[in-house]
C-alpha cells in the first residue's frame, strides 16, 4: 500500500502547486531531408515530421490521462536549418520556415525550434543567409522559433555574428512593432547552446542526437516555493540555508522523476528514444508560478537587492543536485530561468525599480539561460544590443555554462513604459540600458574573441 501521505503529497504538487510537464519536445533529425531541389526538401521535411510526430498529440493526451499530470505544451525541435538547407538561397530558407510553420500546426504542435545556425567559430554562407532572413521569418511565421549559437568555451565568441544580430533584432522588432517587437521573443542568442534543450524558443535537435528523441521539460516553481514556504513556516527554529537547499533538492528529485516517467512513457508509446529531462524552473505570468517568489520565500524580499544572486545560486545548485540524484538522464539547461516578463514577481521588481539590467546580468552568472525576455528601449542602437549580447555570452563562455539572450527592443517605446507580449510571454516595464551608445567601436572590430585558456583541457 502506498502511504496516504505520499499519495497526497504528490497529488498536492499537481493540484495546488501547479506541477506540470511544461513541454514534451520531440527532436527530429532533418539532415536526411537535404536536397538541392527546394520543393523536394520541403516535401521531405513535411513527410518526416508527419511520420514521427503524427501521433505525438494523441499519445501525450493518453499519458496525461494515465498519470494525471498536465502536459502543457507539445513541441518539435529540428536539426539546425542552416545546415539542412545549406545549399539554398534566402528564398529557400523562407520556404523551409513556412513549411515548418504549416506542418507543426497540422500535427497539433504549438512551436517548432531549430531555425538555427551554429556559428561560434565562423559562419558558412548558409549560416549567414539564415541569420539575414530571421526578421522576415520571425515576423511572418507563427510557430517557428530561431536560435543562433555565437560562442562556446572551446571556440570563443564570433563577434561578426553578434554584430549582425544586433541589426537583426532591430529589424525583427520593427516588423512586429504592433506587438511590441514580439518577433524578438522567438529568437535566442546562445553561448554554449545545449543540443538537447526542450524549452522554447531555444530548442534545436543537435548534432550527435538520434533520428528522433523525446526530451522533457518539467517545471514547477510553485512546487519549490511551496516547499520552501512550508519549511520556513513550520520549522521549530529558523531553518538554515543548508536546510533550505536540502528541501529544494528533495522537491527537485520528485519533480524530475515525474518528468522522466512521462518522457519514457511517451517515447515508449511512440517507439522512439527517450533523451533527457530538463528540470528547469520556468516561470509563467501566473502568481505562484514564479522563480522570483522562491527567492522571496527564502527571505529576499526585494528582488534585485543584495542577496538575490546568492539566493539564486543556492536555488540553481540545489535544483541540479536533486535532478542529478533523480535521474541519469538530466540534460538541457536544468536550472532556474529568470525570464523577466514571464515571471510576475521579477516583472514587479522591475516596475518598482529594485531589479536592474546590471543586477540581472550578475544573476545570470549563477543560473541557467541568461538575459531572458527583457524589454529594452526601442531606440537602442544595434551596436549596444550587440555589446549586451557579447557581455552575456562572455559570462557563459568563461564559466563553462550556457548563457543566452532573448531581448526585445520595443519600437516606439522608452524606458519606464510598459511592453505587453501576452499569454505566457507576459509583460513588463521597459528597462533602461545603463551607459548605452558607447560600445560601437568595440563591436565593429568584429572577428572572434579567442577561446579562454580554460578551454585547453586536452
Amino acid at each position: 500500500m502506498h502511504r496516504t501521505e505520499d499519495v497526497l503529497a504528490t497529488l498536492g504538487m499537481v493540484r495546488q502547486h501547479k506541477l506540470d510537464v511544461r513541454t514534451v519536445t520531440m527532436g527530429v533529425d532533418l539532415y536526411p531531408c537535404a536536397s538541392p531541389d527546394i520543393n523536394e526538401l520541403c516535401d521531405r521535411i513535411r513527410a518526416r515530421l508527419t511520420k514521427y510526430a503524427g501521433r505525438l498529440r494523441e499519445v501525450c493526451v493518453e499519458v496525461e490521462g494515465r498519470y494525471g499530470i498536465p502536459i502543457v505544451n507539445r513541441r518539435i525541435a529540428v536539426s539546425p536549418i542552416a545546415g539542412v538547407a545549406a545549399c539554398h538561397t534566402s528564398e529557400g530558407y523562407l520556404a523551409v520556415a513556412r513549411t515548418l510553420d504549416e506542418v507543426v500546426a497540422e500535427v497539433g504542435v504549438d512551436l517548432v525550434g531549430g531555425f538555427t545556425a551554429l556559428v561560434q567559430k565562423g559562419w558558412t554562407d548558409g549560416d549567414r543567409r539564415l541569420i539575414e532572413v530571421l526578421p522576415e521569418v520571425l515576423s511572418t511565421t507563427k510557430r517557428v522559433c530561431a536560435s543562433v549559437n555565437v560562442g562556446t568555451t572551446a571556440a570563443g565568441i564570433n563577434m561578426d555574428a553578434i554584430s549582425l544580430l544586433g541589426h537583426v533584432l532591430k529589424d525583427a522588432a520593427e516588423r512586429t512593432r504592433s506587438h511590441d517587437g514580439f518577433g524578438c521573443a522567438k529568437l535566442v542568442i546562445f553561448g554554449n547552446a545545449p543540443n538537447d534543450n526542450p524549452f522554447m524558443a531555444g530548442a534545436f535537435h543537435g548534432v550527435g542526437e538520434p533520428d528522433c528523441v523525446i526530451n522533457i521539460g518539467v517545471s514547477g516553481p510553485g512546487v519549490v516555493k511551496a516547499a520552501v514556504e512550508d519549511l520556513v513556516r513550520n520549522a521549530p527554529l529558523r531553518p538554515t540555508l543548508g536546510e533550505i537547499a536540502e528541501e529544494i533538492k528533495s522537491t527537485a528529485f520528485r519533480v524530475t522523476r515525474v518528468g522522466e516517467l512521462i518522457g519514457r512513457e511517451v517515447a515508449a508509446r511512440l517507439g522512439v528514444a527517450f533523451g533527457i529531462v530538463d528540470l528547469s524552473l520556468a516561470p509563467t505570468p501566473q502568481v505562484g508560478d514564479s522563480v522570483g517568489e522562491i527567492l522571496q520565500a527564502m527571505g529576499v524580499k526585494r528582488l534585485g537587492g543584495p542577496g538575490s544572486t546568492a539566493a539564486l545560486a543556492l536555488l540553481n545548485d540545489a535544483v541540479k543536485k536533486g535532478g542529478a540524484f533523480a535521474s541519469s538522464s538530466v540534460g538541457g539547461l536544468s536550472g532556474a530561468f529568470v525570464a523577466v516578463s514571464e515571471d510576475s514577481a521579477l516583472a514587479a521588481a522591475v516596475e518598482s525599480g529594485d531589479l536592474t539590467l546590471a543586477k540581472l546580468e550578475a544573476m545570470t552568472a549563477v543560473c541557467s539561460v541568461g538575459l531572458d525576455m527583457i524589454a529594452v528601449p526601442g531606440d537602442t542602437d544595434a551596436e549596444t544590443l550587440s555589446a549586451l549580447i557579447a557581455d552575456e555570452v562572455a559570462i557563459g563562455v568563461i564559466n563553462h555554462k550556457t548563457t543566452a539572450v532573448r531581448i526585445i527592443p520595443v519600437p516606439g517605446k522608452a524606458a519606464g513604459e510598459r511592453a505587453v507580449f501576452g499569454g505566457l510571454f507576459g509583460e513588463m516595464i521597459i528597462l533602461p540600458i545603463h551607459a548605452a551608445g558607447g560600445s560601437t567601436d568595440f563591436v565593429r572590430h568584429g572577428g572572434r574573441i579567442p577561446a579562454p585558456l580554460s578551454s585547453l583541457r586536452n
Partner: protein
Amino acid sequence: MYNYVVTVTAADRVGIVHSVTGTVRDEGGNVLELSQTVMRGFFTIILAAEFPERLDPRVLEAAIIEKGRKYKLTVAVIEAEANPAPSPVVNGERFILTVLGNDNPGNIHGIAGCLAERGVNIVDLHARADGPIFSLVMEAFLPQDLSPGDVRVALENFGKGLGLEAFVQHENIFLATTETGPVRVGATSNSPEGAAVAPH
C-alpha cells in the same frame, strides 16, 4: 495443508499480535501472510495460516479468544481454499484513486458503487473524515479496456453536488516520486499477486 483466514478486532493494546500468533503456532499453524492496522484506537488484524491437519474453525477461534482473554478479542476464523480463486481483474493495471472534499454520509458507498459497476477491483483502501473534510486513497485494478479517464468522470459525476474531487493516476507516478530506484513505465504488475516490472 489446510488454510484458514483469521480476523481479530479489539481496542488497541500492546501484545495482541504476540498473543494471536502464539495461539496459531500452538495449534500447529504457520502464518503465511498478516496485515495489521490501528484505526481510531481500534486494532484489527487479518492473517492467513496453514495447518497440517484439518481443524474446526470454531476451535481455533475459541483458543485465540481464551489465550487473549485480557484483550477482549472479537475473532472470526474461516477455512480457505488452498488455491484461492484468481483475482477478479487478472489483466488490469494498478491505479491510485484519490477522492477529496466534503464529508457526507454514503461517500464511500457511492464511490465503491461507481467502481463496482465498471469492474474495478479495490485491493487497498484508506478513508477518513477529519471534521468536515473527507479523504480517500485506494489502490484498485482497472480492467484493461477501461480508461482511467472514464473512471474519473464517473467519480466526478458522483461527487458533483457533494463537493468531492476525484483523481485517478497510475501507481507508477507515486513509485517514481517516492522511491529511488529506476523509473518504471508500463504496467508494474499485471495481477494483484504479480510484480513484473516492464523494462525501459
